[in-house]
C-alpha cells in the first residue's frame, strides 16, 4: 500500500498565492457568467480559487445547479472561463490538455467499439503508440475488474462496469490529473458504494491526482483528502475540510462517529440543502 506517502502530500493551500508554484493545478479568481436565452446574465461561478497538489484526492461538493460541472468543464478546457486563470505546474493553460483525463457523468462509451477499443480512444486521438498501450489497457482493465471483458461491447456491460471502463479510458494516456464529474451519480446506492471502494483502490495503486465532483456528502468524505464546498448560484467556495482518516478506508468507516461529525459539518456548510439526501 502506498497510502501513507500519498497522504503526506496532502496540502491545504487553497487560496494561498505563495503555494501556487508547488501546486500541480491551480485555479485563480475564476469567474463564469453567461446569458440565458431570455437575455438575463447569470453568474454561475464567482471567485473560485483551488490548488491541487500531486497525488491529492479533492472533492467538490455542492447542490445541483451550483456550477460544479461548469467548474470541471472549465478546468478540462472545453468551456472558456469569463475571468481568472488556470495553470498546470505553474504554466498558464487554456484549452484541453493531454495531461488531464476526464470521466463524465455517463460513461460515454462508443457502442461500435469493444471495451478495449473504447479505452484506447485517447491513445488514438493523441496519436500515441497504439501497440504499446494495448498491453497497458489490458492491465488497467484487469485493475478495475474488467478482465475478460476486453472484447465485449459496452451494451453488454452493467452501468457500474461501463463506468469502470470510462475510468480506464480516463487513465490510459497517463494524465497527471483525473477529473471526475459525478461518475457514480447514475448508479444505484449499492453499486455506488462498491464503486467508491473500487475507486479508492484504483487511486491508491495509480497515485493520480483526482478532482472529483459530487453531490453526495458521504461519497465525498469517504474518498477525499480534502472536500471543498461550493454554494448554490453564484457558486463560490464556502468551506473546505480536510479528511484525516487513514487509507485504505473501509466502507464501515461510514458508520463511525467521526465520519458522522464530518458529514454533519459539510451538511451544515451546504445549508442543509438538497445535497443531503444521501
Amino acid at each position, binding site marked *: 500500500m502506498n497510502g501513507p506517502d500519498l497522504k503526506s502530500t496532502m496540502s491545504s493551500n487553497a487560496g494561498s498565492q505563495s503555494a501556487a508554484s508547488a501546486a500541480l493545478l491551480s485555479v485563480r479568481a475564476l469567474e463564469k457568467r453567461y446569458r440565458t436565452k431570455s437575455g438575463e446574465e447569470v453568474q454561475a461561478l464567482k471567485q473560485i480559487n483551488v490548488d491541487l497538489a500531486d497525488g491529492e484526492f479533492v472533492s467538490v461538493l455542492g447542490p445541483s445547479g451550483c456550477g460544479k460541472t461548469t467548474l470541471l*468543464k472549465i478546468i*478540462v*478546457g*472545453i468551456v472558456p472561463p469569463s475571468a481568472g486563470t488556470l495553470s498546470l505546474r505553474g504554466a498558464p493553460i487554456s*484549452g*484541453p*490538455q*493531454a495531461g*488531464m483525463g*476526464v470521466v*463524465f457523468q*455517463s460513461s*460515454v462509451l*462508443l*457502442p*461500435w467499439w469493444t471495451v478495449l477499443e473504447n479505452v484506447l*480512444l*485517447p491513445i*488514438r*486521438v*493523441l496519436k500515441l503508440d497504439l501497440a504499446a498501450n494495448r498491453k497497458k489497457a489490458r492491465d488497467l482493465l484487469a485493475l478495475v475488474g474488467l478482465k475478460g471483458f476486453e472484447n465485449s*461491447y459496452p*451494451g453488454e456491460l452493467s452501468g457500474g462496469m461501463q463506468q469502470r471502463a470510462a475510468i480506464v479510458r480516463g487513465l490510459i494516456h497517463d494524465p497527471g490529473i483525473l477529473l471526475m464529474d459525478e461518475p457514480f451519480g447514475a448508479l444505484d446506492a449499492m453499486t455506488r458504494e462498491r464503486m467508491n471502494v473500487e475507486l479508492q483502490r484504483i487511486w491508491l495503486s495509480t497515485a493520480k491526482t483526482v478532482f472529483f465532483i459530487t453531490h453526495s456528502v458521504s461519497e465525498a468524505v469517504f474518498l477525499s483528502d480534502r472536500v471543498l464546498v461550493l454554494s448554490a448560484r453564484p457558486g463560490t467556495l464556502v468551506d473546505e475540510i480536510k479528511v484525516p482518516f487513514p487509507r485504505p478506508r473501509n466502507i464501515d468507516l461510514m458508520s463511525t462517529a467521526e465520519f458522522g461529525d464530518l458529514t454533519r459539518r459539510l451538511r451544515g456548510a451546504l445549508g442543509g440543502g438538497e445535497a443531503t439526501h444521501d
Partner: protein
Amino acid sequence: MTEAAKARPRRGLTSTFAVLASVGVGILIWQCTIWFTDVPSYVLPAPKAVWTALVDGLARSPTERSSFWFHLIDTLKATVSGFLIGAMLGVVFAACMAESRLIETAALPYVVGLQSLPKVAIAPLMVIWLGYGIESKVAMAAVLTLFPVLINALAGFRSAGRDRLELMAALAASRFQVFRFIKFPGALSMIFTGLNIGIVYAMLGTIVSEFTGAQRGMGVIMTQMQSVSDTAGVFAALVVLACTGYVLISIMRIAQNYVVFWSESTVREVET
C-alpha cells in the same frame, strides 16, 4: 430471453402460414374474377397465363432478346451501379454540408429545388445527354438514390451526442478525428435508413429511364409487351421486378445488421 426464444419459431410458423394463406386467397379471388366475369384477357389475364409467360420468359437463354434474363441483367447492372454512385455521393455531400456552413448554404438552393421536383421527370433529359445506353439509366438511378441518402446522412451527422463531442473536445481531437470516430459511425444507422429507401428508388429510376428510351432492360421489354397487348407478359415482368426488389431490399437488411450491429433498431428489425 428464453421465453422469447421459445415463442419465436412458433410465431415464425404462424406468420409463414398466414402469408401463404393470404397469397392463396388472393390468387383464388383473381381466378374467380376470371371465371365469373367476362373481363377480356388483355385486361386481366388468368393466373395460369401469367405463370406460363413467367416460366417462358425465365426459361429462355439470357442471350435471347425475348428472355427476361437478357433485360433483367441490364436493369440490375444500372440499378446497382447507380445506387452505389448515388449513395457514395450522398454520403460525401452530406459530410461536406455537415462540416461546413458555407457549403451547406451554397448547396441549399439546389437541394430544395431538386427536392421539390419530381425527379423522374428528368429522365428525358438524361436520355438527351447520355443516350440510349446504360449511362442514362445509371444516372437516373444515381440521382434518385442521392437524395434520401443525403438527407438521412446529414441528419445522422448532425445528431452526434453532446457528451460524445465533449469527450472528444476534452482530448483536443481534430475535426477529422471527431468525424471519423464519432460522427460517421454514429450516423451509420441513419445512413442505412437512407440506403434502404435509396435501393428501391434506384430501381424505380432505372425502370423509368428504360420506359423513356433504352435498348435493353425490364422497362424496355414491358413497353414492347404493352405494344402487342401481351398483358400476361407485363404481369410476369412485374413479378420478376417485385422479386428482384425483394432480393435487393433483403441484401440491404443483411448488410445493415452486419454493419450497424450495435443499433437498437437493427436488433428489433431482425426479430420482426
